[in-house]
């Protein structure tokens, strides 16, 4: 084994060790963050100045919807829409907590009313409809609000003949809404069918992590499917698969890089290049 092999192996093991429900460890303090990947202690400021990408190993930390929008849209061009759509509790769902209390906690954690922010912006001057999911709100799970807001912004794109981009980040279904959550997969896929027929560009950017219902609906039916570097993407969770097939999966299984090899995505983009890549794609598909 060469030293490079050893480093690669260690890196893959570290990727594998990351868990679906890991969250940024605040206990280290407000000034330092531990990189999951290379375990280096990073001054938070350095990390923020580097778009939340580890300067040592290029590991892309998850970012929130607002931060994502700032990174890809022209300054002050984002115009949020459909904020009035808010979650309720149609099933009166209670597990160890009630659904409303989980909503409250998620709101406090993320500052959002649900797991997606939608609106229009310009990307290097090109008007675009965008939807950006936020993992901090209940793991980016898709309930009625996520489904409705995504459908509305794509309807807006259809009506106004705009290109559209959806950034996904989701653990899957919003179990507290059961079959209503499942139906959001159908609803969002139906509007994409209309975009297809209208020949309007629909791009999806899969970011860390994208699983379950989002992978099996609007996430993977983009005209172009992009993955952000290092993102884990899949239908079933790693543990479920390992339990089913009773064998260990490769360390890099379900990473963006693995899926690229499997032909499941068009290409991988680093965060710093995201805006430029999106802008070029829109330009190449819409110039006359």
């Amino acid at each position: 084994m060469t030293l490079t092999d050893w480093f690669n192996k260690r890196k893959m093991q570290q990727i594998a060790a990351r868990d679906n429900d890991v969250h940024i460890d605040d206990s280290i303090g407000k000034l330092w963050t531990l990189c999951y990947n290379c375990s280096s202690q990073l001054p938070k400021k350095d990390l923020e100045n580097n778009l939340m990408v580890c300067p040592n190993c290029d590991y892309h930390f998850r970012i929130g919807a607002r931060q994502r929008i700032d990174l890809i849209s022209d300054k002050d061009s984002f115009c949020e829409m459909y904020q009035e759509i808010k979650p309720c509790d149609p099933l009166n769902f209670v597990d160890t907590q009630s659904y409303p209390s989980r909503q409250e906690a998620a709101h406090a954690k993320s500052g959002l009313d649900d797991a997606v922010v939608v609106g229009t912006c310009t990307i290097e001057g090109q008007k675009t409809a965008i939807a950006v999911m936020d993992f901090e709100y209940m793991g980016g799970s898709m309930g009625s609000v996520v489904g409705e807001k995504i459908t509305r912004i794509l309807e807006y794109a259809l009506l106004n003949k705009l290109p559209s981009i959806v950034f996904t980040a989701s653990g899957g279904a919003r179990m507290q809404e059961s079959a209503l959550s499942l139906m959001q997969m159908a609803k969002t896929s139906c509007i994409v069918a209309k975009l297809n027929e209208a020949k309007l560009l629909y791009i999806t950017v899969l970011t860390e992590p994208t699983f379950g219902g989002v992978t099996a609906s609007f996430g993977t039916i983009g005209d172009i499917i992009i993955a952000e570097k290092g993102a884990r993407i899949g239908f079933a969770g790693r543990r479920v698969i390992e339990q089913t097939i009773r064998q260990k999966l490769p360390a890099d299984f379900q990473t963006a890089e693995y899926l690229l090899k499997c032909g499941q995505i068009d290409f991988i983009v680093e965060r710093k290049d995201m805006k430029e890549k999106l802008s070029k794609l829109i330009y190449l598909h819409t110039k006359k």
Partner: protein
Amino acid sequence: MKEENKKVQILEFEKPIYKIQDKIEELKKTSADTNINYDSEIKKLEEQTKIYKKELYQKLEPYQKLQIARHPQRPNFMDYVHFICEDFIELHGDRHGFDDKAIIGGVASIEGRAVMLIGTMKGKSTKENLECNFGMPQPQGYRKALRLFEHANRFNLPIITLIDTMGAYPGMMAEETGQGEAIATNLKEMAKLEVPTIAVVTGEGCSGGALGLAVSNKVMILEHAYYTVISPEGCASILWKDSSMARVATDALKITGDDLLQYGIVDEVIKEPTGGAHYNAQEMAQNLKKSLVESLKEFEGMSPEELRNQRYSKFRAMGVFAQ
């Protein structure tokens, strides 16, 4: 397929009924052996059984229905083909190197109407189940279904899908070949179809794996079948961190036909024989056939555009939120 000779496997909650029935048999035997007349006792017990049965099966808890939906002898896709179709010609393969046996499809005739009939297939023995992967499709299964949807669309055949699956298969090849994409593409392409599409959840309707065949003009469910975003066991282990809470999760997820009707997720609940479909596959199939034929009539004469609009509006309206 012939179930008459096979003994029905009794579920735990049904055992009290069978205890009374055993007692009746015992009395009858004693009566014959000893010439003592137990008729009045027997009659009383038979009355009791009848009342008890009625009460039990009318007020099944969701968790009990779940057991019926998963009953190993529940009629499967090929049983329904046998009882419902005058003709069925199976069409194999996804045309990209694979024929997933967890999804079966073909052209069929139902009361003289030509249709495309597609469904998930569960086996009744270990051997059968290994062949059809316990009814859990690979991406290639969804792609075979899509090919058949498109075929039906070209030849103006209404599409009937029968769904009974624990979900799409969570395997390595499934991920590598795009399980998510295969399901998503079906959702999107089903929206575009120009023929009537009717889906029936006949047993388990679990998550995206079920929905991948069910973006249809009309969605029906059998009385004891269930339709959910995640299995109650999966939900219990994620939310309660305890899979033994499955019974509580089953209630919370509101997975029964009546619940789904209320939320507009299904359009019709099809009655099952007393005790569940496995007690009388033929009767079940007749009920199903009747609903299918009536549903086909509902969409007769609708233009492709009307069919698409009806389907689109139906799914567009799904979801509950405040604004």
